[in-house]
């Protein structure tokens, strides 16, 4: 098991390297640069900007510089938090005016006051909070609905549950969000229409420092808007999977042994039927916690989602690299967790190297 995990981590490094290289090549292959504006930037100003961000260097050198800044620890005299071009995620003070620094993802070109690390520290946790809550909503609604539909197959409960699921899938956030805002925010004034109830700094880097009603007042609408569509997916998957498992031989055996129906369903059937559900939960988790552009924009949430889109339209190279790598890390880790969970859910699966 340990060897398996270690091996997966080594694979992850390779994956990240490949992802970074492909992203780097693609983003430089797209026409247009970060400083192309409606007002043409005069050539001498452009030269200053390019020099500041090393964009005047040949591409291979730029890529190596990026790898160097991100992966290789440095020792530096520059105090952390004073320079946009020298901002590291990990800073360890090792002496008078001397720091050991690691992971500099570079400055953002479109914001002249922030670095990619600032987005990781301040925006990513908010997206992660929203994503986690939305996933919770999705699971808490989706799984019971799916079970209900499977157990009462072809009854009114099944049709009702799947009807709700179809509704959830077909009504996107862009429709559901403004409707919720209109009803609960503008008309009834029960909830604040937009905003987020937590701000940096966060406990352990991502937990809101005050997790009270004030936080949930802001979180409830976006979490439901975002989670509902996903819950529909989970419900349909749970239903299909449970129905299939219920036809397996070992379920028949369990019933033949005279086990009560409740034990058959919850102890034997449900655990195994969760495998396909857990499989989609991995990528779903990665997609939700790294931020969702539409939901965050509609509800005015200061998350990361916006920058997955905007960084590309802005040709904000370091931010493109940063967001893509973040997504890749989370996705790989989520899939690793999924694989580990498999072994727990189904005794037939063994993690071997």
């Amino acid at each position, binding site marked *: 098991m340990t060897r398996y995990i270690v091996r997966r981590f080594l694979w992850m490094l390779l994956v990240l390297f490949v992802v970074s290289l492909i992203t780097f090549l693609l983003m430089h292959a797209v026409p247009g640069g970060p400083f192309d504006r409606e007002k043409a*930037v005069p050539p001498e100003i452009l030269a200053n*900007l390019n020099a500041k961000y090393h964009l005047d260097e040949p591409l291979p050198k730029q890529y190596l510089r990026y790898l160097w800044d991100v992966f290789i620890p440095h020792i530096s005299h520059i105090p952390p*938090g004073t320079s946009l071009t020298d901002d590291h995620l990990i800073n360890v003070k090792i002496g008078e005016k001397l720091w050991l620094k690691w992971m500099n993802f570079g400055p953002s070109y479109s914001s002249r006051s922030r670095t990619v690390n600032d987005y990781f520290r301040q925006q990513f946790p908010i997206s992660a909070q929203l994503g986690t809550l939305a996933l919770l909503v999705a699971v808490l609604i989706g799984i019971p609905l799916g079970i209900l539909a499977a157990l009462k197959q072809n009854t009114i409960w099944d049709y009702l549950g799947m009807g709700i699921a179809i509704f959830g899938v077909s009504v996107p956030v862009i429709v559901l969000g403004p409707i919720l805002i209109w009803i609960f925010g503008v008309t009834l004034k029960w909830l604040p*229409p*937009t905003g987020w109830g937590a701000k940096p700094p966060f406990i352990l880097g991502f937990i809101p420092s005050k997790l009270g009603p004030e936080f949930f007042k802001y979180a409830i609408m976006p979490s439901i808007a975002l989670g509902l569509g996903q819950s529909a997916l989970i419900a349909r998957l749970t239903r299909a999977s449970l129905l299939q498992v219920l036809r397996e031989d070992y379920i028949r055996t369990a019933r033949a042994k005279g086990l009560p129906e409740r034990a058959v369903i919850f102890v034997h059937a449900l655990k195994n039927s969760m495998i396909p559900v857990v499989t989609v939960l991995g990528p779903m988790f990665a997609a939700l916690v790294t931020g969702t552009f539409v939901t965050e*924009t509609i509800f005015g949430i200061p998350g990361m989602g916006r920058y997955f889109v905007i960084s590309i339209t802005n040709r904000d190279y370091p931010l493109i690299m940063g967001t893509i790598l973040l997504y890749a890390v989370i996705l790989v880790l989520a899939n690793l967790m999924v694989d580990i969970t498999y072994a727990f859910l189904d005794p037939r699966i063994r993690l071997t190297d």
Partner: protein
Amino acid sequence: MSRKLSVALALVVTAAMLLSACATPTPQIVKETVVVTKEVVVTPTPVPKKVLRMNLGPGDVPTLDPSLATDVSSVQVIELTSVGLTRQNEETAAIEPGMAESWDISEDGKTYTFHLRKGIYWVKYDAAKGEVVQVLDCQGKPREVKAQDFWYGIIRTLKPETASDYAYVLAFAIEGAEDFNKGVITDTAAVGVKVIDDYTLQITFKEPAAYNANIAGMWVAHAEPSWLIEGDECTEARGDKWTETGFFQGYGPYTLKEWVHEDHIVLVKNPFWPGIPSVPQAKIDEIVFRMLEDTAAFAEYEAGNLDVAGVPIGDIDRVKADPVLSKELVIGPVLCTYYYGFNTKAPVVNDVRVRRALSMAIDRKALVENVLKGGQEPAQWFCRPGLTGCPTPKDYPDLGVKYNPEEAKKLLDEYLKEKGLKPEDLDLTLMFNVGVGHEKIAQAIQQMWKEKLGINVKLASQEWKVYLKTIRDPKATPQIWRLGWCQDYPDANNFTREVFSFGGSANPAEGGGVNWKNDKFEELVVAAAKEMDPKKRVDLYAQAEQILVYEDAVIAPIYWYTRVTCTKPYVKRTFSILGGLEHIEKWDIAK
């Protein structure tokens, strides 16, 4: 190891990986060396705080650093937290004294000597005390805003390593600044900015131009706190991060209380700002700027959580019909122009008759009323009326280009006859950047050209940055393209000359853009820049515009921008024409 334990361990390891990826850096001990004595007791009254809640638009404000700002939201905050040597009146666009009480202009019109106001102090928000305090120097005396601070601000903007976008405005105008900005010279003494004494700053410009005083007041030429950015014996250097919450220092009618990135900015009244005729002391105690997308902001406005908000295009008809909202609605001018440019070297549009015909066949009034609906003004020329030096439709009703389908048809027929072509033979492409609004406009105009001239113009669109490359590429510039232009400083020079003179923003010397050169036009815009008589100046620009939009028909101006906003009735406000830059120190709340 049992399986369950290893699972748990794996989870801990992955969780730790996750956490370390987003952990904040190890806290460092910050030496807070600025000792502050409480000198003035601020409003001890129990009067409820007046708080104004507004929206700055989605996404973070890019910067609060005057040297680096390029966009309206950044400049909006900067103009409230610091004041330039001169300041533009937001309702008339006229130049008024700002931090400079007065200025003398030398005989040759190039050297400006600015006399600074005394008794204006650097301030910062002290979170522990919950109030605005004066910044003290190393001797414990309040730091006054001095000529040296303006000198530092200008030089810092110009330094090549600052890589300021808007340095070009200063580089273009100030003696020696261009070479300094290029890195050709490194000696600051060669730049035409000199500190005569603590309260006197001298700026030498390249040309004796009417807009020199405007440029001296721009945000890129504001005073900046050198001790905070670079550090001194008693202040820790904050470098690039000097504009963050807790560090920021300013001297304008407001100062920064809190900046939660991507979410909101809170400005608090600066009680030490003495109030000057052009920038009075603020009446509103706090301004909360949210960062919301249009529709979200308008929902907050309707829920009563914002006091001022722009109206989303989709809601304009509903707001106009609503008995309450319609009373809160105001449509005001914005100093920007939307236009179509012609590549005068491209086939078909290389003939002026075709260009003029296309421009004259656009029914701008119908476009504004039926497609845009935001009260935009049909544009007859490029320079946005309201700017110093620009002609106005009131004074020049017949200037420029107007909708005239008969004349347009006649011009085109003449061209077609000469070439022996039929209207449907013409191969024309109109290109714009991807966007619902641009597409709607393009389709409407395509239809007008089809109906009035019988020609089929193809539409093409590209993603924004790709598009910008295309229209500036001498080999790829399409026949007809679209762009907009907004003021950097309120003068016709920033429009007519800086955009369309040879080598200008939409007329690159290497080709692309409009691909055009007309000596008469060049002479007129240079003469206009130097002309001191306001009336004669406007006339020179009018002549230049006539060449640009009619005689040579290099562009088809489409509309002049407006802004549709709703304001709660208890907000007493001014309406800025400066592209959304509000002078909130003049506003009040009377609930």
